[in-house]
């Protein structure tokens, strides 16, 4: 059995399920990106794997342990989750925020931080390059810095699996690369199993070991970036025309959008998209 295994997962928020029939597996040292259009269920999938959606059915096992039989704190020692948006209400400092990852790694509620806890917090802050910011309040940070604080907190949780919901969404190009390089390092050097929801296909293709395409709550393709970055599949998944070429620095495929010419107005483009959607049905 694989390290993380998801079988026939169905999840939602009370209404009809947002994702259904999802099965996937992840090994230590594997870096998987779930890609899909807006509303396809990527974020729900990432949350569902850590049992964070209000409604959930199926089977999830980590290292042979059934997640549905574990307590919240036991799950938190196996999986760490980095949310997409985070609006701090109260003004915790960076260090306090990262240290919260250790609360449930301690023997009791009233136990103080051990040396090991302190070391884990410090190392996590250094890895995500927020150590210099440790005394700053979260409200004083930029979106990119906050994102790195959240990643740092997940690292301090010291789990074999990392789940991230669109980690690049608030970041500029430079930080996007930094975050993905950090994740790749964690995957390769520390053997973490990493799963991200990501809408930036080029970023995912350059750094992830495999991709999953998800559409309308179902997985429609899975494979290595070289296999999935393919014109017709992307058109089917994202309803957009792309060209696929090889990135010179990585040797991996990347896409560029085919922009409709001036003779095809937006309305025509929409009509064409609609037709394509109907045909598909």
């Amino acid at each position: 059995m694989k390290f993380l295994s998801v079988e026939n997962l169905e999840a939602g928020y009370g209404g009809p399920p947002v994702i259904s029939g999802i099965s996937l597996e992840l090994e230590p040292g594997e870096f998987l990106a779930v890609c899909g259009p807006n509303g396809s269920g990527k974020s729900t999938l990432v949350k569902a794997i850590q049992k964070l959606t209000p409604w959930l059915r199926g089977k999830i096992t980590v290292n042979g342990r059934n997640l549905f039989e574990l307590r919240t704190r036991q799950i938190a020692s196996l999986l760490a989750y980095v949310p997409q948006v985070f609006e701090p209400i109260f003004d915790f400092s960076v260090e306090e925020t990262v240290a919260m990852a250790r609360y449930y790694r301690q023997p009791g509620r009233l136990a103080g931080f051990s040396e090991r806890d302190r070391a884990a917090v410090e190392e996590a802050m250094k890895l995500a390059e927020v150590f210099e910011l440790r005394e700053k309040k979260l409200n004083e940070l930029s979106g990119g810095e906050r994102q790195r604080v959240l990643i740092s907190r997940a690292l301090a949780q010291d789990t074999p699996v990392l789940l991230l919901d669109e980690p690049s969404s608030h970041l500029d190009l430079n930080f996007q690369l930094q975050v993905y390089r950090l994740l790749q390092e964690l995957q390769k050097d520390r053997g973490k199993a990493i799963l991200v929801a990501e809408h930036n296909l080029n970023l995912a293709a350059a750094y992830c070991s495999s991709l999953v395409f998800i559409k309308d709550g179902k997985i429609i393709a899975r494979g290595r970036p070289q296999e999935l970055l393919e014109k017709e599949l992307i058109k089917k998944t994202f309803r957009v025309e792309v060209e696929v070429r090889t990135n010179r620095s990585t040797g991996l495929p990347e896409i560029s959008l085919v922009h409709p010419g001036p003779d095809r107005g937006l309305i025509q483009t929409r009509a064409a998209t609609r037709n394509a959607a109907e045909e598909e049905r």
Partner: protein
Amino acid sequence: MKTTSRLRFLQLALLLFTLLGFLLSLKLGPVKTSLDEVFRAIISGKSELTDIILGLRLPRALLAYLVGTCLSLSGAILQGYFRNPLADPFILGASSGASLGAVLSLQLGLVLNLAGLSAQSLLALLASLLLVSGVYLISERRRFQTTESLLLTGIAAGALASALTSFLLFHRADAYEQAVFWLLGSFSLAEWQQVWLILGTLVLAVLVSQYLARDMNLLSLGDETARSLGCPVRSVRRVFLLLATLLASFSVSVAGIIGFVGLIVPHGVRLIVGPDHRRLFLHSALAGGLFLLVSDLLARLVLAPSELPVGVVTAAFGAPFFIYLLNRPHSS
């Protein structure tokens, strides 16, 4: 100033002013009392004024202090619970329920005394607990309870209870004065039994809230994040809601409705000690006690020999202080 030195400063100030507040509360009153007599009454119980100092002034000062700690702790809990620094102990309708109960007992003309609680207090306590429990159960019927649904149900139920209270008062105008006196809050009828009752509630709440304070830090990040960091969100939320409701309801039942303490004190303390609930809960409670002790002293003194409702004092002195805190330079 760094948080640790601000913390030391706050602790020292709380200690000194609380001692001073108690001393003045015992010394000042319609009957002239010297400090010497106060000390004699406390130490040996052998003073001509012992009955006044230990029988009237001390329980009153203690009750004011303890109700202040309860309201402030309740406010601190609910502000974290709702992730909203504007939440206060009465946000879920505890005060509206209590008013309804108290006015109802006046209308019915009930007379009894149980553990220091009059019929009015007892009905206020019951109605307050019932209302908040009802609010919780109704909002839990939704498959996925959210804090927003709880909050809105609480506001609606509070409005309903207020409407019923107004109707009762409108219906029987003769109970109006008595009801208003009760609703505005006062410690003039303080008794030792009430002190023990509130003390018991407070000790329980302080111990449990301190035990779960780290979880409140996690809850203040949002339920999803809290759960992903290992917090059993649902059960922790239940415990905190129960504590906040007990604190608010018991306070209202012995002292009437005293606004503003549970809103401004935790907020002000958070600006000084930071948002970590392990520090916030305890210091909010201590500061709330001091705040209400001083407010009650002022309520007794400002228009002596007649008394102001203490709720008027808390708002009159609390509001400007609050505005200052919010708008002072470098505040968050």
